[in-house]
């Protein structure tokens, strides 16, 4: 089993957006997402993406993956999306479009699959490795991280982008919400040879005595640990129990390696 690390993180949620380097709070409420908020690179079709894809693509943009050259692809990089509601927002909008003048919208229909977000991310970053959308209710995001770590540890791929993303708008839910957290999990040895400094180390261990405290919004907490350097000295850790649906008594320990001596909090 390979040792794994997290080398990058990204977040777009109700508070703002950012990564390990910087954080930008939204000045007012959460705005309609616009591409130029996240990147200088052109992406004319961002407007066409549905809400789920916009959040997922923006969070992955925050990872600041190295640019690729034309014709290059990334076969050794996997993509995992975990989403509770998946494409529900677009599903509902699509059904309504069937009954509107002009009829069913082909564009909306293309987005009635959460795996379309995988496609949008893969196209944007030329990722040709394995991908999957996994669903485990509210723990879908943690499941994506859990699986991503396993895929790398088991030697299937050298790296995995794990995205926990959920987006439902007011037209669909009483309590609209949208957030996306992205983490790049990689093989520690490969990262070391590239000379990069990872943000955190991951390790699995049996859960102590069967009773595990489940953090609220674990991916958000994980992002804050990494982005702020934990606000504490290196070595601060977050304990993430295995998603309950896996029925395994294991804990993932995320040990922060990105300490800040100024103790700045995120």
């Amino acid at each position: 089993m390979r040792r794994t690390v997290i080398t990058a993180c990204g977040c777009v949620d109700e508070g703002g957006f950012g990564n390990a380097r910087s954080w930008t709070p939204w000045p007012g409420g959460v705005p309609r997402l616009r591409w130029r908020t996240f990147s200088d690179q052109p992406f004319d079709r961002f407007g066409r993406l549905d809400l789920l894809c916009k959040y997922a693509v923006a969070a992955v943009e925050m990872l600041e993956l190295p640019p690729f050259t034309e014709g290059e692809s990334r076969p050794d990089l996997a993509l995992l999306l975990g989403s509770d509601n998946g494409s529900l927002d677009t599903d509902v909008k699509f059904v309504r479009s069937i009954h509107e003048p002009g009829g069913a919208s082909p564009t909306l229909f293309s987005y009635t699959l959460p795996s379309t977000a995988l496609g949008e991310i893969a196209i944007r970053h030329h990722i040709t490795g394995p991908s999957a959308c996994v669903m485990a209710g509210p723990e879908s995001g943690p499941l994506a991280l859990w699986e991503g770590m396993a895929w790398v540890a088991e030697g299937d791929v050298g790296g995995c982008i794990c995205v926990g993303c959920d987006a439902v708008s007011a037209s669909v839910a009483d309590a609209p919400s949208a957030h996306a957290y992205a983490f790049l999990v990689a093989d520690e040895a490969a990262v070391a040879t590239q000379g990069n400094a990872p943000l955190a180390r991951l390790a699995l261990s049996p859960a102590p005595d069967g009773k595990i405290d489940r953090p609220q919004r674990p991916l958000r907490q994980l992002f804050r640990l990494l982005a702020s350097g934990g606000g504490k000295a290196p070595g601060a850790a977050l304990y993430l129990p295995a998603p309950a649906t896996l029925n395994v008594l294991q804990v993932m320990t995320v040990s922060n390696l990105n300490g800040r001596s100024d103790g700045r909090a995120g």
Partner: protein
Amino acid sequence: MSRRCAIVGMDIIAALGVGAEAVWSEMMRKSCGIRPLMRFPRGKYATDFAAELPPEAEGMSGAYALAAGVGRRLLDGSAGGAARARTARTGLVLATTKAEIGEIERLALEPGAEVTGRHNPYVLARDVAKDLGFSGPVMAVSNACASGLIAIVQAVRLLRRGAAEMMVVIGVDVLADFILAGFSALNALSPRPCRPYDAGRDGLSLGEGAAALLITLAPRQEDVVLGVVAGWGIANDACHITAPSRTGDGLRAAVTRALAAANLSPGDIHCINGHGTATLYNDAMEAKALHGVFGGGERMPPLSSLKGYLGHTLGAAGVIETVLCLVAMRERTVPACLGLERLGVERPLNVPREHLPLQRLTRVLSVKCGFGGINAALVLDGEAE
């Protein structure tokens, strides 16, 4: 211990019948399950044909009833493994694109409608697992038309990690106005039963159904091993969100990875279960990709698509068609590619128009391609180790 997982149980409910034997025997009669619409209005969509569930399946209406139904049939099966699944630590991976899609329609059109929540693939999986009494890991996989194969892969991963002793994989999708209207809007439907790889192919036919597989890492004496998961490969086209890549590179990469994982070379494969949806672009891309791996001409193993019998069963396809691959291996017969009259793809392929008996049919490659540019390939091996 071997890392190759054994499939020790299977069942299927689809347009041609309930149970693997019923479906296979209809296929051997070259019955076409794609028929004039019964539950949906004719003249409304881009087609009046679909492969709806037969009258025998009438008691199982909706994704939950179908998934739980096929799961119960799997466990009621007489093979020893099925009995053990009830008491062992057994988990479930559910493959679906739209789960209980009728509830999505109600949520959209009837504000305040009461729903079970099974429009959410995980809730559907959780409820089915509870119904079947499983205590192991439970999750749903939603990867468009590649969901079924990816769910099988995920189940194998969980078994290898020791997260469960046995895993059940269920694939399910049901037809709805949502699906018929959507594929009509994409111009993807044939107005008549589909014709995979045919020169005159003009789109896909939709289908519905469910299938289940019982998989274990350590089969016992009393198990009937139907086949072994020898390897897989999954790769993204990174090209377009609905159209397949023109080059077929993604599918080619998936197949190459699957063969490498199975420690096989292309010449070791006895037959290929294609994706073969009968759209202009999918079949062309598939031909390029498979020809690129297998070389074309005499060396090409026979390739067949099952879409002409059962339609495109979307998220369930990977599991439904794996069940039929296992039967084909047992019967040593490659089913005819129903709907094909004249081959019309840009690369030479070996697609039988009549059922093809083989001396040896133990190594099958199955491929599935989904929206989002996802390509999945699975190698099944019928030989005991």
